[in-house]
């Protein structure tokens, strides 16, 4: 089961978790990305490429499902404007055992950083700026390249 959502509404952690539980899963691993509160950001706006975004997330989820034998995975990403402390993204992966659930979650969030068409714009007291991609994100994504379809 693959459940993808790209939405302006707040992410309900319990609801996303419930989507992937069951179906014989012995383990559910999750990752939640949150707007930072420690660097003067007043608001964060996520722009995306609507015609492409869900397909890109589905591709990432399907890759992880094949590689790690997942029983279910959900990737929910928020778009639009959000405030410090609010959730940006949640990945929840269910598998028979913990190692696969944990690794699948890590792979999905690392690949999402480089292979899904989202752009972050931060508003600070001094004005707004587009967030620059980090070289470390490419390196994190590259380490999963073995064993991918």
């Amino acid at each position, binding site marked *: 089961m693959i459940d993808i959502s790209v939405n302006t509404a707040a992410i309900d952690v319990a609801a996303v978790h419930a989507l992937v539980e069951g179906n014989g899963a012995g383990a559910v691993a999750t990752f939640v990305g949150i707007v930072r509160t420690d660097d003067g950001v007043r608001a964060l706006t996520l722009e995306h490429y609507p015609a492409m975004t869900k397909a890109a997330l589905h591709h990432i989820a399907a890759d992880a499902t094949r590689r790690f034998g997942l029983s279910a995975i959900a990737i929910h990403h928020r778009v639009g404007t959000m405030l410090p402390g609010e959730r940006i*993204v949640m990945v929840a992966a269910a598998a028979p055992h913990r190692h696969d659930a944990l690794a699948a979650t890590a792979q999905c969030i690392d690949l999402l950083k480089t292979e899904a068409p989202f752009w972050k714009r931060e508003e600070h007291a001094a004005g707004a700026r*587009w967030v620059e991609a980090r070289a470390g994100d490419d390196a994190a994504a590259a380490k999963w390249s073995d064993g991918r379809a």
Partner: protein
Amino acid sequence: MALTILYFAWVRERVGLAEERLTPPDDIGTVAQLIGWLAQRSPGHAAAFGEPERLRAAVDQQFRPLEATISGASEVAIFPPVTGG
């Protein structure tokens, strides 16, 4: 052939458009060549496309390198490196 060209993030802001529909000349065969052609359209385009090494692209909604062909494509998107998650 007419091409739908989409812009995102600061590329969209500098161009001043989210989307335009254009017919590039026949000798424009790759995304990189398209970027060079677009840069001549207005000062905003020039500001968006002056540093191609800062740009990424998708052809028909698949991420592609700037050397990729646009032959037969109906939609090309040009944007900065993605920053989701």
